[in-house]
């Protein structure tokens, strides 16, 4: 019992990310509205971004902005500073997420012009009829 509780509460941020990821994944698969699928995709990608950010955090860690004087003196304690590399990687991932969302919204616009609806069931009906 103790082991289980320690697993859940000690790593509770990772559990939150897993729940978020599965929510996004469920939305991508189950929802019929195309824009809701896109929102699910965004939630999924955001959960992964959060996972990376929490990788770099440290208990009692300082912000990774160096004071010039301190850095020149060499008095910076690297082990006590939060790891900035995952933050930088996730900036790139956010850019990718924005690009995919932009392209997907433009594609949804074209689908709407073509079929007059963005509900997947109705679109498949209209394709089946034509």
């Amino acid at each position, binding site marked *: 019992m103790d082991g289980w509780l320690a697993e859940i509460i000690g790593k509770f941020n990772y559990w939150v990310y897993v729940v978020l990821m599965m929510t996004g*994944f469920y939305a*991508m698969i189950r929802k019929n509205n*195309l824009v809701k*699928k896109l929102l699910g*995709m965004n939630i*999924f*990608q955001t959960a*992964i971004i959060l*996972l*990376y950010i929490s*990788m770099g955090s440290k208990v009692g860690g300082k912000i990774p902005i160096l004071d010039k004087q301190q850095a020149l003196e060499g008095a910076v304690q690297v082990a006590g500073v939060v790891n900035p590399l*995952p933050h930088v*990687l996730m900036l*790139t*991932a956010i850019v*990718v997420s924005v*690009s*995919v969302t932009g*392209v*997907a919204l*433009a*594609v*949804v616009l*074209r*689908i709407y012009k*073509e*079929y007059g609806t963005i509900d997947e069931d109705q*679109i498949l009906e209209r*394709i089946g009829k034509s």
Partner: protein
Amino acid sequence: MNHNLPVLVLAFPLLAAFAVNLLGKISKKHVAPWTLASLSLSAVASSWVLMDVLQTGKFTYTVGGWMAPYGIELVLDPLSALMLALVSWVALVATFSALPSIKQEMPGREHLFFSLYLILVSGMMGLVITGDAFNLYVLLEITSITTYGLIAMGKGRAPLSSFNYIIVGTIGACFYLLGVGYLYLLTGTLNMADIASRLPALYESPTAATAFCFLMVGLWIKMAFFPLHGWLPNAYTHAPKGAGVLVAPLMTKVSVFLMIRIIFSIYSPEYAFLGHAGIKNLVVWAAAIAIVCASLLALAQKDFVKMLSYIIVAEVGYLVGGVWLANQQGLTGAIFHVLNDSLMTLCFFVAASAIAYRTGKSRIEDFRGLFKKMPLTMLALCVGALSVVGVPPTCGFFSKWFLLLGGVQAGQWEFVAALIFSSLVNAVLFYRVFEVAFSQPEEGASLELEGSRTLEVPAMMIPPLVVVTVALLAIGLSAGPLVREVIRFAIPSL
């Protein structure tokens, strides 16, 4: 060789993409020269790089002068140099077919299409030579996003197919990102060589296994390994023909190459194949089922391009099975088959694009009388069909031979049976196409062509047909020297 040459191979199409977009707004005449010039320069440069790497061995290039493992490295060993040459030459040959096709399909918007096209080509080139795991994710997404855009530019059901591809493709890329995240959590570095040196001490941890699973599944989605292939047939069928000609031969094969990279350069073959007993057999069984199901699905298709897409799914099954056979023959066969399959798919899609250009039809039953009307196209299609069935001296025979030998040696009889079954099914598929094409058109012909005059494709579309036909035969005839001189060095040491 100038040591900057690998990056220049990447930089030429990228700069040309921006130039084509800007200058294309002024006048459409600028699109073709810039595209062809930059891709030719890339192709020549990549061949030079390949010859140099075969002579002097592996070569790494640090971008920006920041040393590894902090900076991004480009790794050029014989396998990646071979893939680089393949990507640039296939792109160049495909462009000859894409230019007239796009001019017919979307006049006035060619500059937009070709700027996306060139960014896709340079992204794929970067994908095969990068040595940094996160850079791979960025380039994977660059190629995917441009592919989504290129496919969505088509007519009819193209935007819907592209949307499906967006959803599934993003899941695949996110799984890859998760895998890289777990690897970073374990080892603290993103450089592939550095991860490979730090990982062996940590092989027992479940995180390494989880990372491996996520990486594999993400790449299997990207390469359309059955049953994760759902996006491929619709996406490639409804895409504009000029996009299909570039994307179909290359995207899935590059993803197979990435899988080889991960198994051999990040994890070691011992871990992947011997570490968790039974995984290897499961994957080869899955590949055999993939080949059989995809071939059966191809039999059911009435549309020529959709049939070709299911053949691509079956070929991916060959490749995944060949890699996971875990012996020298299987891996030789898989790498050789990557080369051959790109050329065969290029041949099929160029022929389909030529037929669509002249007749606008893509259903098999509308191909009546095509042998008389478009002899050169049908000749290319013949050679391609012989290659995919596996008839010597075309190259398809030799790579299948290696795969069969590997399957027998590893004792995976289901894989051998699936390969033979698939060859028979391919023979049936193409016999059906040729039977219709040989027959005479009825009275009131459905093809709107007069008399029996041949109505061949425009001059620009002829070079790809000729080049691909010659290449399929030449590579087949020189298979022995090719395997000995080039591919043997490309196999990562087992």
